[in-house]
């Protein structure tokens, strides 16, 4: 399924917005005001954008440590995200969570786990809840190639297939888990890719192409809503910055600079921008307007975060239990 012109512009807008937010965080991170371990999403924007474009607010997303893109694409509030990174009471998680634990239940951001692979079964259970409640909502799990090493992935997928759950497993294969390349962790292509055949809709796609992501996801979501069970979409992409923190904090020497450069040249945001400009769907003027709008929004969010109050003194003791 191809996106409409409007959807294309929206895809691009989402990607660019994620990119600009990430860049701003990166550029300010060394000031140490954001005292939380950030895992930036630069290079992977097409995935969050393409996936979430196919979802409704009441569909659920479960994600991981690298969640800024998922949170924003799914409709999460930017002010609340930035306040969370600044450890403020107005943060989406009240300052309890930090960058690795963003939440926005109203928009279906059901939470993230910083335990690699930990969110996969949780998203699966969310799908079970939808099915048991007779709803046509979809549960999406975002996870990395590192998380695919974990047995929870195998166990979850087996269960989702068994119960025909409306879950879409979106694997962002960015080639690395911290400083470990996929080849030192996976014995080859993901076993499920070939394995489940007729029973599981699987796609291995270029994760830097938002329209490919959109198309695969649209199919997966339609199947899920129709009660046809889970899907597995492997998006090949690249983490352009370091694993955590800003670029200058990334240890040197674990990956080939040429590899990084090659992927930088394949920047999904720039590429899609070129495409839309060439297709005449986007004008230089429109782009400038968009950039200005995003810059203003980001300024506002950072200002909001900075001006927000710190958690109250007694906050520590709250929220252990739900009444």
């Amino acid at each position, binding site marked *: 399924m191809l996106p409409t012109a409007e959807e294309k512009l929206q895809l691009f807008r989402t990607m660019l917005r994620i990119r600009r937010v990430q860049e701003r965080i990166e550029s300010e991170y060394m000031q140490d005001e954001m005292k939380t371990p950030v895992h930036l999403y630069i290079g992977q924007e097409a995935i969050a954008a393409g996936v979430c474009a196919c979802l409704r607010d009441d569909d659920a997303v479960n994600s991981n440590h690298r969640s800024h893109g998922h949170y924003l694409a799914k409709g999460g509030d930017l002010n609340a995200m930035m306040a969370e990174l600044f450890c403020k009471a107005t943060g989406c998680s009240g300052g309890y969570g930090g960058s690795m634990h963003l939440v926005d239940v109203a928009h279906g951001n059901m939470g993230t*786990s910083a335990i690699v692979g930990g969110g996969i079964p*949780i998203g699966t259970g969310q799908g079970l809840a939808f099915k048991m409640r007779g709803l046509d909502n979809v549960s999406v799990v975002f996870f990395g190639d590192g998380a695919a090493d974990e047995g929870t992935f195998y166990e979850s997928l087996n269960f989702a297939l068994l119960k025909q759950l409306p879950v879409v497993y979106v694997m962002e294969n960015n080639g690395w888990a911290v400083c470990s390349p996929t080849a030192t962790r996976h014995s080859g292509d993901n076993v499920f890719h070939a394995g489940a055949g007729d029973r599981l809709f699987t796609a291995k796609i270029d994760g830097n192409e938002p329209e490919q992501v959109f198309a695969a996801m649209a199919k997966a979501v339609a199947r899920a809503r129709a009660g046809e069970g889970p899907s597995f979409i492997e998006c090949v992409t690249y983490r352009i910055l370091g694993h955590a923190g800003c670029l200058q904090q990334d240890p040197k020497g674990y990956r080939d600079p040429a590899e990084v450069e090659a992927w930088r040249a394949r920047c999904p945001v720039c590429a899609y921008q070129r495409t839309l400009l060439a297709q005449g769907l986007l004008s230089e003027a429109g782009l400038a307007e968009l950039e200005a709008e995003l810059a203003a929004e980001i300024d506002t969010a950072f200002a909001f975060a900075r001006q927000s109050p710190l958690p109250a003194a007694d906050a520590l003791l709250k929220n252990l239990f739900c009444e």
Partner: protein
Amino acid sequence: MPWSRIKPDTNEPDFQIEGLPDNRDGRRVSYAEAINEALSQALGLDPRVFVMGQGVDDPSGMFGATRDLHLKYGAERVFDTPLAETALSGVAVGAALGGMRPVYFHNRPDFLLLAMDQLVNHAAKWHYMFGGAACVPLVFWACIGRGWGSAAQHSQALQGLFNHVPGLKLIMPATCYDTKGLMLAAIADNNPVLIIEHRMNFKQRGLVPEAPYTLPIGKGVIRRKGRDVTVVAVSHLVVEAYAAAQELSEEGIEAEVIDPRTLRPLDEALILESVARTGRLVVTDTGWKTGGVTAEIAAMVAEKGFSSLRAPIVRVANPDLPTPSGYTLERAYYIGKDDIKQGILKAVRGA
């Protein structure tokens, strides 16, 4: 495995059952029936409740606790699972986030070690970690598999591990009345609750009202009044401690027996108030001694009730060893009435 030869089915002793004052003529059901009734009522009353677990729809149905529920409420709401405790625990967490109220049965706590990541890193933290944005109402259940050579991997009493985890509630019932009321309370609770039962409890028959009722999580009960020493006993050791106390009464020692019922939150006030009267404390638990439940209760009293204490605290717990399989070794391993008696004598007479 002829469990009936390990311990015959018996009526519960006539000890005090909070909330059931005039209970001598009530309806008596087995421990398994009490749980089964709680589950059945929860399933009947709340469409969000479901029951999952390896074997919940077996003919044996978790020692009877889940028997036939799938026939009554359907295979959608009472379902068997793959042997995948790690992910299925996460599935329960996710289903809870998604508005359901899962009750996940494991037949033994030993298998919960595969669920630790989801229980401790996820379920117990989700509410706090997101500043209260989401709740995880779920119940995990497991039954300690003592006896008949169950050995090291099928008989562990692991409450000492879970007692350490903030964000989890931990319940260990000792009577038929409590197991029904606390199961219904656990299901109604908006937080992750772990219920650990004991295989020996399943040999009991007790007084249980038919209508649904809940009991407060975090409230203990005095099973027997006494002035000389406070005995805090957990799970099936409540019955053993009661028997020990009854026997020592003939020797002029009156032990007060406290059943905390829930370990987390612990009814500290009840214990401290009792120790303030008796001045002596024995703590007994089915788990290992070092770093376990007896450690926490002893430490709490040594901290908050020290001035009442007139003698060293005595801990009576399983030895710090894996469970051996052979019956002679098992016999040497497990603690019961006589060990508690010795513990009481030590606390009271210093030897």
